[in-house]
C-alpha cells in the first residue's frame, strides 16, 4: 500500500518536475512578443521568484554578490547591477525608466524616492508577526504572478513545488532521521547563526517532516547568534549538523583546532555537512532549493 502511494507520488513528482522544466525552459516573457513589464528588483528573493516565473528583471540590486548568496538560479547575463540594495543608484534607476520596482521591507526606507521613478510593489516575507515566511512567500508569488501577467505560470510553479515537497516528505518518512541543526558561520569561529522558528528553513523542515534541533528563541528573521559552546546544548540527541556556505576562509582552520568544536558529538561522529549557499531570506525558489539539497543529503546518508 505504502509503496504504491509512493510510486504514485513519484510519478506525480516527475510530472511536476517536467511541468516546471517546461516553463523554466520557455523563453522569457519579453521574447514572447507581449509587452513584458520592465522590472527593477531590489530583493534577491523576489528576483529568484521572477526568474522562476520566466520574467527576466532589467536590473537587480547587489547583482555582483548574487553568486555568493543565491547561486541558483543563475542571474541572466546583461542584468544591470543597480548598486547596493540599501542604496540602489537612484540616478541609474531613473535613466533605466522601469515599469515597476519590486522591494522588500528591508529597503523600504527608499520607497518615497523610488515611487518618483516608477510604481513600487513591496514583497513582505519577514515581518514581526503574522503568517510564516513560506506562507507569505506563496501568497507573494501569486501576487507577483498577477502583476507580471504570469498568473498561470505562478500557479503551475507553486503546484509543482508543493507536489515535489510532498513527494520528498513521503520519501523521507521512511528513513530513521535525526534532528537537524542549521547553522552558518558568517561571523567567526566562535559564533554561529543558528536557524529556527520564523525562518524559511523551518517552514521547509515542517513540510518535510524533519525535526529542527534548535528550538530556542530566534529573532523575526528566524535566526539567533550563539556562541559555539551553546551548540553543545543540542548534543544529547542524535543531531545532523548542516553548515551553509559562504564560510569565511579563516574559519576552517580555526574550527579544526577548537576542542569544543571537535568534541561536539555531531562533529566527532562526522555528522555534519557543508551546503552550498541557499538564500536564507529568500522565497519559494530558495525553499525548494534547500528542500532538494536536504532530501538528497539525508537520503544518501540514512537509507
Amino acid at each position, binding site marked *: 500500500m505504502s509503496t504504491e502511494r509512493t510510486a504514485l507520488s513519484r510519478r506525480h513528482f516527475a510530472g511536476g518536475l517536467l511541468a516546471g522544466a517546461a516553463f523554466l525552459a520557455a523563453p522569457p516573457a519579453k521574447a514572447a512578443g507581449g509587452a513584458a513589464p520592465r522590472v527593477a528588483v531590489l530583493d534577491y528573493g523576489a528576483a529568484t521568484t521572477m526568474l522562476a516565473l520566466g520574467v527576466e528583471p532589467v536590473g537587480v540590486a547587489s547583482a555582483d554578490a548574487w553568486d555568493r548568496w543565491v547561486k541558483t538560479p543563475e542571474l541572466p547575463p546583461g542584468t544591470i547591477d543597480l548598486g547596493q540594495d540599501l542604496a540602489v543608484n537612484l540616478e541609474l534607476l531613473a535613466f533605466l525608466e522601469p515599469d515597476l520596482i519590486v522591494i522588500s521591507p528591508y529597503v523600504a526606507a527608499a520607497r518615497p*524616492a523610488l515611487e518618483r521613478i516608477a510604481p513600487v510593489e513591496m514583497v513582505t516575507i519577514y515581518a514581526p508577526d503574522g503568517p510564516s515566511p513560506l506562507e507569505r512567500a506563496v501568497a507573494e508569488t501569486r501576487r507577483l504572478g498577477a502583476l507580471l501577467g504570469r498568473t498561470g505560470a505562478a500557479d503551475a510553479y507553486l503546484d509543482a513545488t508543493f507536489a515535489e515537497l510532498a513527494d520528498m516528505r513521503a520519501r523521507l518518512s521512511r528513513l530513521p532521521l535525526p534532528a537537524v541543526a542549521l547553522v552558518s558561520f558568517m561571523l567567526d569561529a566562535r559564533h554561529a547563526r543558528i536557524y529556527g522558528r520564523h525562518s524559511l528553513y523551518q517552514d521547509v523542515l515542517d513540510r518535510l517532516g524533519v525535526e529542527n534541533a534548535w528550538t530556542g528563541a530566534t529573532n523575526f528573521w528566524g535566526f539567533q547568534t550563539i556562541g559555539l559552546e551553546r551548540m553543545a546544548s543540542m548534543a544529547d540527541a542524535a543531531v545532523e549538523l548542516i553548515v551553509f556556505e559562504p564560510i569565511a576562509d579563516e574559519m576552517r582552520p580555526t574550527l579544526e583546532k577548537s576542542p569544543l568544536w571537535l*568534541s561536539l558529538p555531531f562533529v566527532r561522529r562526522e555528522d555534519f555537512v557543508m551546503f552550498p549557499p541557499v538564500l536564507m531570506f529568500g522565497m519559494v525558489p530558495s525553499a525548494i532549493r534547500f528542500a532538494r539539497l536536504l532530501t538528497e543529503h539525508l537520503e544518501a546518508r540514512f537509507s
Partner: protein
Amino acid sequence: MMAETRDKTPAIALTLFAAAAAAAWLLLREDLPHLLEPAAGYGADRMVLLYSQLPRLVVSLLCGAALALSGAILQRALRNPLASPTTLGLSAGASLALVLAGLVAPGLLVAGREMVALAGSAATAGVVFAIGARRNFDPVALVLGGLIVSLYCGALATLLILLNDRYLVSLFIWGSGSLAQQDWSTAVTLGPQLAVLCLGVALIARPLGLLELGEAGTRSLGLSPSAVRVLAVSIAVALAAAVASAVGVIGFIGLAAPTVARLAGARRVGPQLVWSALIGAAMLWLTDTSVQLLAADMGAFIPTGAVTALLGTPLLLLVLPRLKLSFAGGMAVLSARRWRGPTMPAVAVALGGLALLALAALFIGRTPAGAWQVNGLEDWDVLADWRLPRVGAALAAGAMLAAAGAILQRLTGNEMASPEVLGISAGAMIGMAAILFLITDPAYPVLMTGAAVGTALVLGALFILTRRSGFLPERLVLAGIALGAMLDAFIGALAATGDPRSLVLLRWMSGTTYGTGTASALVSLVLAGGLVGLTVALARWLDLLPLGASGARGLGLSVPRARGVLLVLAGLMTAAATIIVGPLSFVGLMAPQIARAAGFVRGGPQILVGAAAGGGLMLTADWLGRTLLYPYEMPAGIVSALVGTPLLLALMRRT
C-alpha cells in the same frame, strides 16, 4: 586637597569581587559539580564548563586587569585623567587592521589574527604619539588626536563593511568585544604575555611615581622624564594590544577602573596600579557574568564589550563633575599667516570656486553602463531630480558643519574641537535608531522627526549637565565623547546580534546624501544660509571669547550668555547637518582649520571662508562617493573623513 582622605579602594574592590563571585555562582551553580565527574563520556555540560565557562572566567579577569593597568599607566605617564586604550585609538587601530586583513589577505588571519591586530594598534599608537610629541604630550592634544585617529579607523572599517555588507558584519562581534571562549588557547596565550608585561610595569612603577615630583625627581634616578614616559606608554600599548588581539575591543574598563581607584583614594603609584588592575578585573568579570545571566534569560547574544561601553557612559558622566581637570587652558592657537590683502575679494574668490565645484558635481557623471560622461541639458529632468538635491544638501551640510566647528573651536579655545565631538550628531542618530525600531517601514520625514527630537534631547542634557560649570569647554567635549561612545556601543551590540536593521543604521552613520529630495535640500539650504549668516553676525563674540572670561567681560560681554547662544547655534547647525550627512564627517573639524591656515584669522571671514570650504569639501566628497565605484556608492560623510583626516593630521604636525 591634602586633607586626610580615607583610602576606600580595598572596600570597593572587595565589593566588586563579591558581586562578581555571587553572579558567577548563580551562573555556574548547576554545572560546577561536573568538575568532580570522571572524564569518561561526553557530558555536554561538563565540556561547556571546562572549555567555555572556566576559560571565559579566566580571560575576563586577565583582560579586565590588563586594560585597567594599561589605562592607569597611561593616565599616570601622560598626566591625563582621560587617557585609556580606547581614548587613544589603540583598539580602533587593531579593529581596522583585522578588517583590512580579512579583505586583502585572509591568509594573514589564519597565520596570526593576533599579530595583525597588534600591528594595527601599534601603528595607531605611532600616529597618535607622533602628533602628541609635537605638542609635548599635552593631554588634550593627545586624547583628541587619539579620538580622531580612532574615528578615522572606524570610518574606514565602516566603509569596508558597507561595501561588503553581509560578510564583514562578523567583525562587529570582534569590534564589540566578545569574551566567548571555546578552549583555553586565549587564556594560555594571553597569560604569559601579561605576566611579562607586568614585570615591566613593576620596574617602571618607581620612576613613574617620581614623575610627579617633576624633572629633578626622575633625573636623580638618571632617567629623563620623557624616557620614562615613552617606556611606560609602550608597556601600556602592549597591554592594550594583547587584550585587543585576544578578545576584541572592550571599551571603557581601561578608563573606568583607574578613575575609580583614584577617586576612591589610591594616590601613590604602586597602590594605584595594583588596585586599578584588581578593580578592572572584578569589573569585567562582573559585567561578563551579568551579561551571560541576562543573555540566558533573553536567549540573545550580547557582546560584553558593547555592554561595558554602555554601562560606562552614565558612570563617566556621573564622575565628570568630580574630575579635577588640570588642563593648561586652551592649546596654542595655530600660527597662521595673516592675510595681507583685502578680505572681501578673497572671500569672493572662495565663493566663486565653490560655485564652479557645484556645477562640476552636477554635470559630470556616469552612464548606466558605467562610462564617464558630461551630461547635457537634455538630461536635466533626471539631474534636477536626483543630482541637484544631493549637491545642494551636501553643500548646506558642509557649510553648517564648518560654521559649527568654527564656533566650537573658538569657544573651547581648542582647534581640535568639532561638532562630532559635541555628541549632538550622536543624539540625532539615536533618535533615528529609535524610529527604526518603532516602525517597520519608516519614511524619510518620520526619520527626520526622530533625529530632530534626539538632537534636542542631547542639547538639553548638555545644557543641564554643564550649566553649573558655566559651559566649561572641556566638560562639554567630555560629555559629547561619552555620548558618542554610547551610540557606538549600541550599534555595535545590535550589529553583533545580526539584526539586519543594523546595516540601515550603519548606512545612516556613514553619512550619505542618498535619497535627499528637492524639498529637504531646499530646507537645508535655507537653514544653512540663515544660521551661518547669524553666526557671521555674532562674529565679534567669537573674537572676544578667546581672550578669556575676564578679558571678555572687560569688553562688555556676558560670557555665560554669549557661550549659551553660540552653543545653541552650533547645536542647531550640527543637527541640521547630521540629518543629511550623518555624525561621522570631519568637515566641521577641517573646514575652519583650512580657513585659518589660509590666513582668515578673524571670526567673520573665518566663518565665511570656512563655510565655503566645508561646503566644497562635502560636495566633492559626495561627488566622489557617487561616481568612483558606480553604480555602488560611498557615503559622503566617510569619503570626506578619508580625504580630510590625513590633511588634518599633516596640519597638526606642521604646527
